[in-house]
């Protein structure tokens, strides 16, 4: 009972008596693999990062870095996990050791001081080391840095190394000792994996299939249904069941607020939730795809999403988190909702016998409440094409990356011959739900796209929602930057300005 199977550092084993809420991190540490550490227990610090074998197309595998502190161990039934211990060994009584190139660079260049964050850094770095696209196209293929596009004054793009190493791969790892410079040097010193490297060779084989799982103990259960039919049956049994994909939100509730959901249903590997379809009319994104998978599959078709992705939490989180999850939790400070509102997106809500399409701007009904019925799931997000020709996402936060928005503003205008012909503006962090700023849109549509129009609309934008004072920012600041965001957007949209204005 309650057995799972897992390949850890190349060794396939069965494990008995795993609880439904036992975290992957504790599970690994209980096996004596204490390299992965708990630093924050909410997916912010990356000290717990490990590598997981995830599908890369149907034929291949991608080593994917994830936080081990958030998901349940049961979610990895049938999967392959590699920890810092599995990457290489240090010299010691058992011999001279065999350090992985990532470990060697970190150790020799002063990339570790106290060393507590190092195993997590090493895993996040190893994932990027094995990323198939790394090196091939270097900077060109990287995630764009949000509103910042490297301009002439920043000739050196410090966020991407000469070896194609994308520093965003480490945006979810915190180090309190080094100041990061030697870690960056270690990352940028990495060559290409050797042909004989077993983890590199593994990339050519398919990733493990999802394994239907059912774990029950102490009145709680973790279920990975084999099909949507089974999923809906489970939802019938327990309408309060929590749907999880990467557990990046539920995991925090489990760890910090000590919530113990009675039923957890893992949906992220269901085929019906993993499609990405592009037609002439729309882009349809499966709700169970991780954001990293979406970013990769979209191939820059939706520029506004390219601005969103690097600013959405961290690579470690994006490797697990999904649109379905971010929209499903209904948090007013989730970063995807404002962008999807600006894109005019709708949600496909599926139930056992039916599917309906709900525009995102009609989806939320209150704080973390929506029109979704308990028997429904978010199956996909649909973005109509073509997208507006002038768009930006402004996320205002204390820290430039991997922070929660004080305010986020997504603006998408269609400007034809100098006139705004369509406008959609999505706001986060200013009300109990993500908000569409229709009043501002009305102040723009049909008007010439001039500074005067922008200023008039900015004044309206500054009055939207009901911003609050909290630890992230004051209400006064939130109102002020709402207004400023439209002015900034206008300045950015002017020729010759876009390169220099950065957030």
């Amino acid at each position: 009972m309650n057995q799972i199977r897992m390949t850890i550092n190349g060794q396939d084993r069965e494990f008995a008596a795993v609880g439904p809420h036992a975290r992957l991190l504790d599970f690994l540490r209980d096996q004596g693999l204490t390299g992965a550490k708990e630093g924050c227990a909410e997916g912010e610090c990356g000290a717990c990062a490990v590598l997981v074998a995830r599908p890369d197309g149907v034929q291949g595998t991608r080593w994917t870095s994830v936080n081990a502190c958030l998901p349940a161990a049961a979610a990895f039934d049938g999967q392959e996990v590699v920890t810092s211990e599995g990457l290489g060994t240090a010299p010691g009584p058992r011999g001279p050791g065999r350090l992985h190139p990532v470990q060697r660079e970190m150790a020799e260049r002063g990339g570790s001081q106290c060393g507590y964050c190092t195993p997590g850094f090493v895993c996040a770095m190893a994932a990027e080391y094995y990323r198939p696209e790394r090196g091939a196209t270097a900077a060109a293929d990287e995630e764009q840095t949000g509103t910042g596009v490297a301009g002439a004054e920043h000739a050196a793009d410090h966020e991407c190394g000469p070896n194609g190493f994308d520093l965003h791969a480490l945006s979810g790892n915190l180090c309190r000792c080094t100041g990061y410079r030697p870690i960056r040097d270690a990352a940028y010193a990495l060559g290409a994996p050797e042909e004989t490297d077993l983890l590199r060779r593994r990339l050519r084989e398919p990733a493990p299939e999802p394994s239907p799982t059912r774990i029950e103990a102490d009145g709680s259960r973790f279920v990975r249904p084999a099909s949507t039919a089974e999923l809906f049956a489970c939802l019938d049994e327990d309408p309060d069941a929590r749907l999880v994909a990467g557990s990046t939100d539920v995991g925090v509730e489990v760890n910090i607020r000590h919530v113990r959901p009675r039923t957890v249903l893992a949906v992220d590997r269901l085929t019906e939730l993993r499609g990405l379809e592009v037609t002439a009319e729309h882009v349809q994104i499966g709700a169970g795809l991780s954001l990293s998978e979406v970013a990769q599959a979209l191939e820059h078709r939706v520029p506004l999403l390219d601005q969103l992705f690097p600013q959405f939490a961290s690579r470690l989180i994006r490797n697990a988190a999904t649109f379905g999850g971010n929209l499903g939790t209904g948090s007013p400070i989730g970063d995807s909702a404002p962008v999807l509102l600006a894109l005019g997106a709708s949600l496909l809500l599926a139930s056992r016998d039916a599917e309906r399409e709900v525009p995102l701007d009609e989806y939320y009904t209150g704080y973390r409440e929506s029109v979704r019925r308990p028997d429904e799931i978010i199956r996909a997000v649909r973005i109509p094409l073509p997208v507006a020709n002038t768009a930006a996402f402004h996320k205002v936060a204390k820290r430039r990356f991997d922070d929660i928005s004080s305010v986020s503003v997504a603006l998408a205008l269609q400007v034809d011959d100098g006139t705004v012909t369509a406008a959609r503006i999505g706001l986060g962090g200013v009300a109990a739900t993500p908000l569409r700023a229709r009043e501002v849109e009305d102040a723009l549509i049909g008007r010439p796209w001039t500074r005067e129009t922008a200023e008039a609309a900015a004044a309206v934008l500054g009055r939207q929602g009901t911003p609050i004072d909290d630890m992230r920012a004051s209400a006064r600041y939130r109102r002020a930057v709402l207004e400023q965001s439209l002015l900034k957007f206008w300045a950015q949209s002017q020729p010759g300005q876009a390169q220099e204005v950065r957030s």
Partner: protein
Amino acid sequence: MTSLADRPENPVVGRAVAHDHGADHATGAALYTDDLVHRSRNVLHAWPVQAPHAHARITSLDTAPALLVPGVARVLTAEDVPGVNDAGIKEDEPLFPSEVMFHGHAVCWVLGESLEAARLGAAAVQVEYEPLAAIITLREAIAAESFQGGQPTVSRGDAAAGLADAPHRFSGEFEFGGQEHFYLETHASFAHVDEGGQVFLQCSTQHPTETQEIVAQVLGLDDHDVTVQCLRMGGGFGGKEMQPHGFAAVAALGATLTGRPVRLRLTRNQDITMTGKRHPYHAQWDVAFDDDGRLRALRATVTSDGGWSLDLSEPVMQRTLCHIENAYFVPDIEVHGRIARTHKTSQTAFRGFGGPQGMLVVEDIMGRCAPLLGIDPTELRARNLYTPGQSTPYGQPVRHAERLSAIWNELHQRADVIRRKQEIERFNAGHPDTHRALAVTPVKFGISFNLTAFNQAGALVHVYRDGSVLINHGGTEMGQGLHTKMRQVAATALGVPLEAVRLAPTRTDKVPNTSATAASSGADLNGGAVKNACEQIRQRLAEVAAREFDIHPDDVRFVAGRVTGIGFHDRELSFGELAHKAYFQRISLWAAGYYRTEGLHWDAQRMQGEPFKYFSYGASVSEVEVDAFTGSHRLLRTDIVHDVGDSLSPLLDVGQIEGGFVQGAGWLTLEELRWDTSDGPSRGRLSTQAASTYKLPSFSEMPEEFNVHLFERATESGVVYGSKAVGEPPLMLAFSVREALREAAASFGPEGHSTQLASPATPEAVFWAVQDARKALAAARSAGAVAPAAV
């Protein structure tokens, strides 16, 4: 014996070696306190019952419901304490309190078979509280005159007269935030009762001796009944100097009462809500300059927010007062210090130990007053740097003051400051909403514990018969590379390769009565002790070798594991062969080393004396870019020239400088502690108690270009191998970031506009500074044509 600072030929110190355990860190093999739990059986886990009030009397505590929770083994309360129910050194920190003194204060602890059981048990404990009035903010405390501890004053000359006479006089007020340590490894203790009733604690502590003493005090035992070992810490930064003791005592109490190993590891939320932080401060000042911009007089009152108990607040305040002038000579000065008592965590040591707070006050004064004096801020700072022959306000001559201007000038050249300032002007002229600025700031930081007695250390060095060496010393490893440096010192002193020296974990039964690994002093003190022990052994071995070679012992040379005589090369012994011979001649191959820092004296009553062995110097220049729309900012480039004497280990020293700088930049620009100051039910609750709400620097906050240069030809006489301490001083190099942000904001305003900038200078703070500057420019323009500062 050679002098402490002299280096032999081809020394192992001075080589750029990586951290001893880098490979162990990177492979996950390095063990931290909580990793040991997984190697033990039958362990109990501890979880606190945290009070939901900032100040309250506990009217009843019913632990019985917890014992009904499956898996709960025991609840620890005040009644269980056989010794003294106090975890502090001032007897003001009851381990199990009857009065709640801050939101999240642990009332009692539950032990469970699993962490989950302990947590559920803690939730079941019934506590009734009678809420009391709570003082939360520093201003409330000042208004209520809620102070604790001494109120020292440092003074020289006649500040009142200096202020009255000077041509330019300004006054101001400045309140700035503290800082959470956020060591990646939270507090952890693991206790068990060893053979013969010996209490053995594995603990993440910077001060094993004091942890030992407090545990013994709580358990009612003698110090020799308790042994504390610290394998390593996942970061300390001062946060594990005083704070581990109570948690260790709870674990030890649980272990002695149950006979089972007890593990106590705080979650991040528990750690942030229960342990002390860098002190927030309030300062009120009057300052006077002469017509050339030279400081004439300073009068100030600085008040730290000490939280609910004294902890280290008094020595922290002493260091504040001893650093209020930073690197600047102030002829007439009078600074009063006070420690507020508030209902918050008990604030404690944090890298710099009050020094940064004092120095921030004068750097804020410089930044605010420069435009009012019509002098460029960099020039204003340069004019006021200490020069040789001058003394500090507390009477210590500023030795090597010439290094300040030497560093300043070298930095200007290396960082190409003059050309870049012109480039910045051009950039700003072409960018109405994005401005850049750079600023240069100095650091002068006194090295030694203010309390003279702490400036001593011990070591224990063994040479085995095969010539391998094992060293112990009293310092702890928290990432700073102390153990690596100590191996380098031992290898140098014994003339053996680095690989011949192994280091054993820090334990109180190896080296007793140690000082905290703090005040940047770890390498100075323990290095002196390790060197002393090694030289005793080498002296004895030299006599054995001298007999073998038929030469005088003074002529024996120890180099890279080979022992030979001066001037001849045909006869030599390996170090191992010599050790072997020595054993059979019944020569002791181990030694206890000891070191005390010479030449210190300090009168804490008068706040006068020479408390520091020497000063560390440095300077930095940072260039920032500010987005006026949001106030968000980026650190484009930082250059540093810093004085570490003759570096013991350059790679490690550069690591300390860079890491300290970024940590300082975090304190000054990003990291913000916010407490609930409302009158609502969660008054006093820390609202930034997680990594999601308390943001520390990540990759995006490091300078995009980062150049660190160690000041050359910097031998420090009287310190181990001519080196200087490096742990704390670089943190304060980050003042240049804050000052650059101030100047960037100011560039949106008119000439002569004094820019006030909140601390931390978050995007919001910078945004308001830009808005103020723009308003001032608009006002100036409407009053008469005035050019903006940037053009």
